[in-house]
C-alpha cells in the first residue's frame, strides 16, 4: 500500500514521533545512499527556494536522483494539460512525487491519481506538512521533549498555514497556546473550536510584549502579502509586530524563537546574535526531516 503525506493529519502521533527519531539519525550522518537507483520527481508549480532546495538536497543525500521543474511555464501545463494528466505521466517515470501547487487540495487530488507516494510541499494556503514536522523537530531539539510546552504564535494566524498545521500536530502533546495577532489576523474559529474540543487551553492577545516571558517557544510568522485579497488590509497589518533583542531580557532561559522564513521586518537582525534565535538551525533541520519523510514513505525506515 503506497503512503503519501498530504496533510499533517495523515500522520498519527506514533508516526510523527517515528519520523522525528529517524531525522535524528540523518542529522548524525547525512550521507546515506539508501535510495540508490531511485528517481524522485520534484515538481513545483509555484516558486520556492528553501522547500525545493532542501527536498532536492534530501533526495540527493539519500542517493536517489531528482527530476522535475521549478516553474510550470516551460511545461505542458502551459499548453493546458490537466494536473491529472501531468501526474499520471510523471508517476510512470518515478518512485515518488514531491509537489508544490498554488491550488488548495491539489496534492490530495494528485495522491489519488498517482501510482506512487506523493509528498505535499505546499498546496496554496492549505497544508505544508514537512514544514510542520521540521517545526516539531526543532521544538523537540531545543526543549528535549514535546510535552506540556507553551507555544506563543505571533503574526498572521489567519492565513498562515504553518501555524494551523503546527497547532494540529502539537495537539497530541498537551500544549498551552498563546495567540498573538491583530484583530484582522486572529486564529480562525474552527481551530479554536478544535482546541476546545480537545480541552487544550489558549489565550489571545494583541500585544507581543504580554506573553514573551512565559512561553517556551515563540513562533513568529511573516504577514504574507500574497495571501491577502484586500491590499488595504495588508498595509494596515504588515508591520504590526517587530521582535528586537532588547525585548528578550526577561524570557525563560530555554525559550527559542522559531520562524518558518523568509522573514521581513518581524524579527530584527539583532535577535540573530542572541541565544534565543533558532530559525536558521530550524531551516537546516528541514533537510534531515525531509530525508526522514522520504525514507519512511518509501519503506526504508
Amino acid at each position, binding site marked *: 500500500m503506497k503512503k503519501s503525506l498530504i496533510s499533517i493529519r495523515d500522520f498519527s502521533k506514533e508516526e510523527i514521533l517515528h519520523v522525528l527519531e529517524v531525522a535524528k539519525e540523518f542529522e548524525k550522518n547525512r550521507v546515506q545512499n539508501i535510495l540508490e537507483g531511485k528517481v524522485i520527481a520534484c515538481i513545483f508549480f509555484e516558486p520556492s527556494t528553501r522547500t525545493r532546495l532542501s527536498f532536492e538536497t534530501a533526495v540527493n543525500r539519500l542517493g536517489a536522483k531528482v527530476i522535475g521543474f521549478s516553474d510550470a511555464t516551460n511545461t505542458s501545463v502551459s499548453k493546458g494539460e490537466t494536473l491529472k494528466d501531468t501526474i499520471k505521466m510523471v508517476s510512470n517515470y518515478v518512485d515518488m512525487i514531491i509537489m508544490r501547487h498554488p491550488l*488548495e487540495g491539489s496534492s490530495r*487530488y494528485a495522491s489519488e491519481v498517482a501510482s506512487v507516494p506523493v509528498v505535499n510541499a505546499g498546496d496554496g494556503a492549505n497544508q505544508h506538512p514537512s514544514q510542520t514536522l521540521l517545526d516539531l523537530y526543532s521544538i523537540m531539539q531545543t526543549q528535549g521533549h514535546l510535552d506540556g510546552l507553551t507555544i506563543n504564535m505571533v503574526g498572521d494566524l489567519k492565513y498562515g498555514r504553518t501555524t494551523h498545521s503546527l497547532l494540529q500536530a502539537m495537539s497530541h502533546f498537551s500544549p498551552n497556546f498563546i495567540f498573538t495577532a491583530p484583530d484582522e489576523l486572529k486564529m480562525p474559529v474552527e481551530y479554536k473550536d478544535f482546541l476546545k474540543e480537545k480541552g487544550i487551553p489558549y489565550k489571545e492577545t494583541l500585544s507581543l510584549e504580554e506573553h514573551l516571558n512565559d512561553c517556551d517557544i515563540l513562533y513568529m510568522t511573516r504577514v504574507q502579502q500574497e495571501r491577502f485579497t484586500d491590499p488595504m488590509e495588508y498595509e494596515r497589518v504588515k508591520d504590526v509586530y517587530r521582535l528586537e533583542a532588547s525585548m528578550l531580557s526577561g524570557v525563560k532561559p530555554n525559550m527559542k524563537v522559531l520562524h518558518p522564513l523568509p522573514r521581513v521586518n518581524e524579527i530584527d537582525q539583532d535577535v540573530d546574535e542572541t541565544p534565543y534565535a533558532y530559525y536558521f538551525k530550524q531551516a537546516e533541520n528541514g533537510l534531515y526531516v525531509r530525508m526522514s519523510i522520504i525514507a519512511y514513505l518509501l519503506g526504508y525506515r
Partner: protein
Amino acid sequence: MVSALENGTVLDHIPAGNVFKVLEILGLMGEKNRITIGINLDSKYLGKKGIIKIEDKFFRDDELNKLAIIAPKATVNIIRDFRVVEKKKLTMPEEIEGIARCMNPKCITNHQPVKTRFKTIDNGNEISLLCHYCEKITDVKGLY
C-alpha cells in the same frame, strides 16, 4: 391533468426553492416518465413546501440520501397500486460526492475537472461540508 400515482415515488416536504435541485441531483432533468411537481404549497413545518411525484420510478437509499443536504426534512413515499407501501426519512450520508461545490475559490475542484467530495458535519442546527481536498468548510446555504 394530474391523476393519482399508481406506482412510483413521492418526495414530500422539500423546501420550495430546492425542487429543481432535487430533480437535478436525482438525475431527472431528462426523465421520460411522467413527473408531477408542486411548488409553494402550504406546509405546517416549512411554510411553503415543494412536492415531486415520479411515475414508475424507485430509488436506492443512497441515491435518496444525497438529498439530505438540501432537503433534510423530506419524506419519501413509495406507492404501489395507489397505496403507500413504504414511508421513509432521509439519513445524512457521512460523505457526499459530486453534488455541492466548494466555496473556496482556490480549491482544486473549482479549477480542474475533479469531482467534489465532502464530509458532512452536523452540529445539530446546521449542516456544513468539509472539503476532502482543500480542507475548508462550505456552508450548505448558497450551495449551488
